[in-house]
């Protein structure tokens, strides 16, 4: 038998019998079932409609609640601003930043918006605003601490000094003691990027903050001489360059213990002081056990024309810290 040449005849199956039945052919039980089916469908549709209506009502209520609430009694204007902070910001800064119009009632305040204003300063890490009825707004702040400072040149504002926190946040800083900010090293070797009206956080500030904190805590005299911190080699080599007031370049490794590196540095500086004829130019603490130290020859004597200038050829010596 060749299946390709034979077209099978169509046979009728019992499933071809139409299952529709006229209403009059139904028994009372069947009609009851139809009625129940219709009622069930209607009930389901009704329930769904009720649920939808209820849902819409709840959504509308929530929407109303999200907006400014309309107090039922006479509104009391905001009277007190209470500030609790772990930093240096003061009441005046808070009032200036919140800029709440006079006569605004407590319930009319948009706390979310006010909080956004506080956080926009950069100095505030976290802010909690609480309505204390009848007329007090309590503000609790957690502030960032500056680690380094940097100088930016704005076309509009001219040069200005900004602060950088441990998490890389760049902010103007307000309320700090000038003696504190002036001791902060300058940050170098980074390119600031803008987003909107603010700067994006500086990447890699965590190890810098660790180094500076360790130096400030364990070797205060050393830290006092540090004038700049450069991140130029941080990403590529994992090294932090510190410039001192004596123009010595110190190179720290981020993957080594900062305490050990500071101890080495202290010993080297002590040893270098014992050789006043040499001027220390660079200490590289990022190499490991051996610490390369570069000296410049001091002194002005003009070298004879045949001799190579002493200041151009640094003498590299291997230095073993005690």
């Amino acid at each position, binding site marked *: 038998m060749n299946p390709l040449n034979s077209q*099978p005849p169509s*046979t009728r199956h019992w499933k071809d*019998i139409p299952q*529709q039945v006229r209403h009059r052919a139904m028994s009372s039980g069947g009609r009851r079932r139809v009625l129940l*089916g219709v009622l069930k469908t209607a009930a389901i549709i009704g329930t769904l409609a009720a649920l939808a209506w209820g849902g819409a009502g709840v959504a509308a209520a929530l929407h109303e609640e999200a907006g400014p609430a309309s107090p039922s009694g006479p509104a009391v204007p905001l009277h007190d601003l209470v500030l609790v902070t772990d930093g240096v910001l003061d009441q005046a800064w808070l009032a200036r930043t919140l800029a709440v119009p006079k006569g605004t009632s407590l319930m009319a305040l948009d706390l979310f918006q006010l909080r956004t204003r506080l956080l926009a300063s950069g100095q505030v890490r976290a802010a909690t605003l609480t309505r204390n009825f009848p007329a007090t707004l309590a503000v609790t702040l957690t502030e960032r601490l500056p680690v380094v400072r940097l100088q930016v040149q704005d076309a509009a504002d001219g040069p200005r000094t900004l602060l950088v926190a441990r998490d890389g946040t760049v902010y103007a800083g307000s309320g700090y003691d000038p003696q504190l900010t002036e001791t902060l090293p300058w940050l170098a070797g980074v390119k600031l990027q803008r987003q909107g009206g603010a700067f994006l956080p500086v990447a890699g500030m965590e190890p810098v903050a660790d180094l500076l904190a360790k130096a400030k805590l364990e070797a205060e005299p050393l830290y006092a001489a540090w004038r700049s911190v450069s991140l130029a080699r941080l990403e590529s080599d994992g090294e932090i360059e510190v410039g001192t007031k004596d123009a010595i370049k110190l190179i720290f490794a981020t993957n080594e213990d900062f305490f050990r590196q500071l101890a080495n540095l202290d010993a080297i500086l002590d040893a270098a002081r014992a050789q006043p004829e040499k001027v220390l130019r660079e200490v590289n603490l990022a190499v490991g056990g051996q610490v390369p130290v570069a000296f410049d020859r001091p002194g002005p004597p003009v070298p004879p024309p045949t001799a190579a200038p002493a200041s151009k050829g640094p003498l590299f010596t291997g230095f073993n810290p005690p």
Partner: protein
Amino acid sequence: MSSRTTFIGAVEIGTSKITALVGEYNGRELMIIGHGECPSRGVIKGAVVDYKAASECTHSALEQAERDAGERIELVFLAQTGGHLEGFYNEAAVNVVAADNMIGPADIRTVSELAKAKELPAGRMVVHHIRRPFRVDGRLVPGTPENLVGQQLTVGYWTVHGQEQRLADNIHVIRGFNLEVRELVLASLASGHMVTTQEERQHGVLAIDLGAGTTDYVLYRDGSPHTTGVVPVGGAHLTNDLSIGLRLTQSQAEKLKLRFGRAAVQCQDKGDKVWLDGNFSIGDRQFPRQAIEQITAERTRELLEVVKKKLGNAFTPETCAAGVVLTGGTAKLAGLAETAAKVFGVPAHLGETPTWVADNLRDPANHTALGLLYYGVSAQHERASTSRRRGGFLATFKRLFASA
């Protein structure tokens, strides 16, 4: 069928009673949770002759079953019997298309379609296409022949067909209760599935369901149904014979049949008489026991011989090693197994209800309704898995999108 719980109704519109069962099917297992019964009216020899009366009885049974289950039936498996049902065998063979003679799904599909494609006389409709095992180059294949190697693939179908109007009448009775008929199952297949085991079907077994108006039978060979048939004679005819022979009303004759009827004559004493009522009421009469037994035995033997004759060459004691299994309401007639064994020349026994069936459903008269549920569910399951297999990757995606 999906994996959500479905409440399935199994309905047998019989000549003496209408049975409805409710099954709870969760995609893995089936539990019977409701049962309803109603004495039948408007049904003769399995055919609806009075739509209104038959509808009322059927709907009453369905309502009772729903009440018992506490759930609403969603769809119905309906048993089909009646003298209008006939069957024939048609076989087709195809040469395997692949060059390496490996049988593929297309070969199986083609040969199956050809074997089923036999034109029916006008007004006839297919009720079942029952496939017999495939043969590859004459070699019997119990399962699927896919991926076997051979040159010729052969398959045969036993096609059961019935009169369109009779089938429609039964379906409309159920539709009158606002229920969809999902499966129409031959009564013999339903009861046969219930009273025979897979092992018996593999060895060859004949299941005979003796109802009130009809006797349905199915002969299993090689694990699947081989031949089915319906004889429009049943227990009601025994009652009728007693009624005529002993000049009794139908109800009196029925009472005597149930109490003293036998499929094999046991009483040898012609003087042994039995009372019609036995309660000493006025008008109570005596009848010779031997006469009652002779009438019922003669008719029963004749009925079984008709079945054997209709089976023809399909039945031989050699191909029916597991013997004959008897079921249905009339199978409760004493001595039936002995008579069946004599007529067919093979061991015969009454079909046993599986142990997990509740006590109130253990009557042989319920085997068809019970089998309906199980046969219907397994048939649907098999059809669903076949269509899944045939669907392939693209069809799976289409189904996913359709269901989304």
